[in-house]
């Protein structure tokens, strides 16, 4: 790790000012569970960090509203996961948090910072011994043609196949969440669907926020499909591992059992949180049969592009979608 300057302002405005004042490369630091880790690996070498984890009011959770749930960006993953309204009415959101990392990490990590968690690609994290277009643009991609069993099959490019690692953003994407951000020129809102970028030719650009913009809060519109939802995460062990494949699924069923609302988003298989609109539409207006659920999974992976060792993620992903839909339908029918 390299030495760095440190500032800990008290308000959002001061934080944005501090970041600008500390110059290029300065980073916001929230829970520290990702940035410090990457700094120890020297994958991130910011000359300065602005510690935002104690900003006033930054961790407020408001789940009592009639139109939306509001999560302060500084709220801890564990606190949002355990919120009684989130648990009861949006199990996919709660599960996406509870199945992430470990309890110790969830107690530190924030729901705002988690959205921008960087990939776990071992070639990216392995440092200068491996070429990586994300870490060093133009250097090449060691993962292509390498040990790619954990890598993405959707949204990949010739420049990068690194998997977006998070769970929470996948669930938020399924529920049409929006974030509010603050920068030197004021505040704006960004749909989570517009937040993350596919790698294309510029894998170093992972999201649409400017370096000096700070996520303030996450807003999730109230939805009936929340109660009929799940986040199913398949991984190489029962806890403390990133997804091989995951699916956030939410369903509303009319009294006759016909699907009236359907949400499907994928994690662990794509370069960004991956919404499956065509798969969702395939289920609307019909009954959720085993075959229909399987077919929705197949639609979701129709454009998958496997590498050397990760083709299994296509079949696993299809089954994960089907199983998540089965669980969601059970909950929706209650």
């Amino acid at each position: 790790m390299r030495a760095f300057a440190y500032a800990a302002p008290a308000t959002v405005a001061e934080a944005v000012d501090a970041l600008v004042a500390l110059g290029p490369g300065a980073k916001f630091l929230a829970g520290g569970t990702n940035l410090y880790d990457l700094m120890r690996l020297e994958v991130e070498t910011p000359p300065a960090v602005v510690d935002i984890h104690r900003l006033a009011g930054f961790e407020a959770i408001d789940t009592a509203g009639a139109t939306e749930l509001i999560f302060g960006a500084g709220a801890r993953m564990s606190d949002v996961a355990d919120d009684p309204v989130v648990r009861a009415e949006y199990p996919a959101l709660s599960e996406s948090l509870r199945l992430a990392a470990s309890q110790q990490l969830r107690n530190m990590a924030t729901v705002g910072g988690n959205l921008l968690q960087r990939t776990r690609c071992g070639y990216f994290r392995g440092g200068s011994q491996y070429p990586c277009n994300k870490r060093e643009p133009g250097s090449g991609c060691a993962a292509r043609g390498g040990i790619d069993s954990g890598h993405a099959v959707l949204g990949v490019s010739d420049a990068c196949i690194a998997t977006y690692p998070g769970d929470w953003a996948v669930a938020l994407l399924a529920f049409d969440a929006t974030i509010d951000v603050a920068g030197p020129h004021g505040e704006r809102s960004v749909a989570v669907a517009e937040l993350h970028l596919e790698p294309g030719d510029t894998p170093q650009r992972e999201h649409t926020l400017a370096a000096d913009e700070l996520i303030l809060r996450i807003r999730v519109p109230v939805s009936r499909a929340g109660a009929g939802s799940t986040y199913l995460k398949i991984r190489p062990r029962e806890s403390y591992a990133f997804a091989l494949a995951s699916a956030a699924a939410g369903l509303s069923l009319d009294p006759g059992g016909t699907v009236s609302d359907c949400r499907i988003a994928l994690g662990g298989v794509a370069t960004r949180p991956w919404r499956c609109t065509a798969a969702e539409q395939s289920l609307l207006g019909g009954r959720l049969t085993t075959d229909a659920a399987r077919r929705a999974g197949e639609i979701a992976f129709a454009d998958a592009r496997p590498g050397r060792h990760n083709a299994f993620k296509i079949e696993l992903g299809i089954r994960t979608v089907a199983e998540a839909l089965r669980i969601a339908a059970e909950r929706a029918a209650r």
Partner: protein
Amino acid sequence: MTAAAARPRVDARAKVTGAARYGTDRTPEGLAYAAMAVATVGKGRVVEIDTAAAAAVAGVRLVLTRFEASELKPPVYIMAGGHAVQSLQPLLSDHIAYRGQPIALVVADTPVAATEAANRVCARYEAAPFALELDDEDAEKLRQPEALPVPALADIAVGDAEAVFAGSEVRVDEVYDHPKQAATPMELLGCVVEWRGDTVVVHEGTQNAGALRNGLALQLGIDPADVEVISPYLGGGFGQKNSLQPHLGPVALAARRLGRPVKFVMTRPQTFHQGSFRPASRHRVRLGADGNGRLTAAIYEVDQETSRHDLFPAMYTEAMSRLYGVPNFSGPTRLVRVDTQTPGYMRAPFESPASFAFESAVDELAYAVGRDPVALRLANDTGTDPITGQPFSSRHVAECLRRGAERFGWAARDPAPGSMRADDGSLIGWGVAIGAYPACVAPAIAHVRAGADGRVVVAVDGHEMGQGIRSAITFLVADDLGIAVDRVTVDIGDTRVAPQHLTAGSWGTASALPAVHAALRELRARLGVAETGMLDVGAAVAAAGQPTVEAEAATLGPGQPPEMLDRSRAGKVAFTGPVYPGFTSFSFVAHFVEVRIEATTRRVRVPRVVSVVDCGRVASAVTAASQVRGGVVWGLGAALREASEPERRYGGFFNATMEEYVISVNADIGEIEVDFIDEPDPLLNPVGVKGLGEVALVGVVPAVTNAVFHATGQRLRRVPITIADLL
């Protein structure tokens, strides 16, 4: 369980409160911190090394890239009669034998500065082609008996296995692959080295303080009497800490040059590239049997990796040839040289991969003849060592199978694959496998001192790596003399009190306890009291008119010549077994495993395991059960998760972190029921103990894979079995 049997680990409180001091917990006055820079090519030569940026980091005191052979002699590999984990000593030449080999040692005032400076060391290399896997073009294949022409490593052969196999009514002929696996214990490799005048004091978690003492002395050209190695606890050994490590010499020289004590702790990724590991192995098993599954012949061929610079002896056939009464057996063994650090002994180093292959094949035979896998194994049991024709000193594997089957409820098993389902639709699979591990013995010297205050201090060869040897010794002394456990102090892992022969191969307890037992006999003689029975130690010592009474005893394995004690004192390996004059000794185990495989997503879960062990007398019930659970946990990981992945383009191991190298977590582990036969072995030693730590792991992997076959009908001959195999 009796009250005596349920006694807790004697150092449990010290360990959980942090009072127990491990090697690198020491922080002597003026301590400096070392870190290593490592090679980033798979093989080749350092052409140029730039240390200016490293030296410029604030607080850096030394940046060392090369030692002269006059100040640091290359060590001799432990299995070539020396003391070291490998023969290659980094920092002696420009040759790079494997990715991750150290190219510089940095010493600084703080660990942060040392780490940063190590990262600033910049090298230019001339890269060379390298081999990392069994099938790689440059991997050199050697017939072991030719490469290592010693009697102990001759291929095992009895009868005419080829001919009998060819004429057998039923034949199984399959190949099984086992990957490289890494042991990176919680306590990382490392040391604290301090010079006190001409004496160098080494604090290092090691299973072999004697080898560190003598090996370091040879490397530095000093008298072993001037080296003290202190290792009262290890935070996990698993074989990786079984000898002199390449870091110790350079750190000792840095400490002398700097005139300050120096601490070195290897990073986790470096441990994957410098610590010894379980090499990959390939196993072709041919079993011949009659129509009832009675084995007539077994041909068990093994290829095992070794390094380019050392020959790590492969002994897969030793235990597998004794699992059953197979009259015709042959075990041709080959070594395959690849470009890594020297692989080594990782818990049940040969026996766990071997059992995966052999016990999978036996399961395949059971299905081929349509016989229950437990019944088939019982039908092939033997009381005689089929290789030597000698009796086993004790062998209760049939009772392990019967008792395990009873506890597990095996009788309710429907043998048809895919026939058993849970309420949630999951496939249920039940699998069984047995294991064996040689019961070996090493020389040991025990010294006991009884005080008028009623306390007894025992000093003996042995290292506490969590297996519970300190507890076993304490209980032996307390029970022998009839005194309370807290009256007994045990000093182990310390070259100031005993030679400290290597503790490994599950011989630790079976070596230390007989020595302590003999020293207690001597103590009783000196006190003039009865040879057995309760003793008022304080009164007996007072009656002798001394403040303390001391006694010492040295013991050897059955049939071992006394010269072996000299070998032990010289820090060399001096064990014997499992073939002794007149008998053969192995420990045995039977594992029963239930897997459940989700119907749609095919996740594998292991809700329960039943393990029954024959390790002779159980010397410490609580720590023994804990050992078995630990072995089972590791076996579940080996079957379903663990593998080191070589990066064939860049060299080294890709998944060299605890994130990427997937081991089981608590949530993966279900119920593990452990039982012991607890019958003292009548021949091996007067205490009746055999080994336990390694046999616990042997057979877990095939019990899992056999259960997966039972659940799915898929016979998977490569571990780990992952979800990708089951979709």
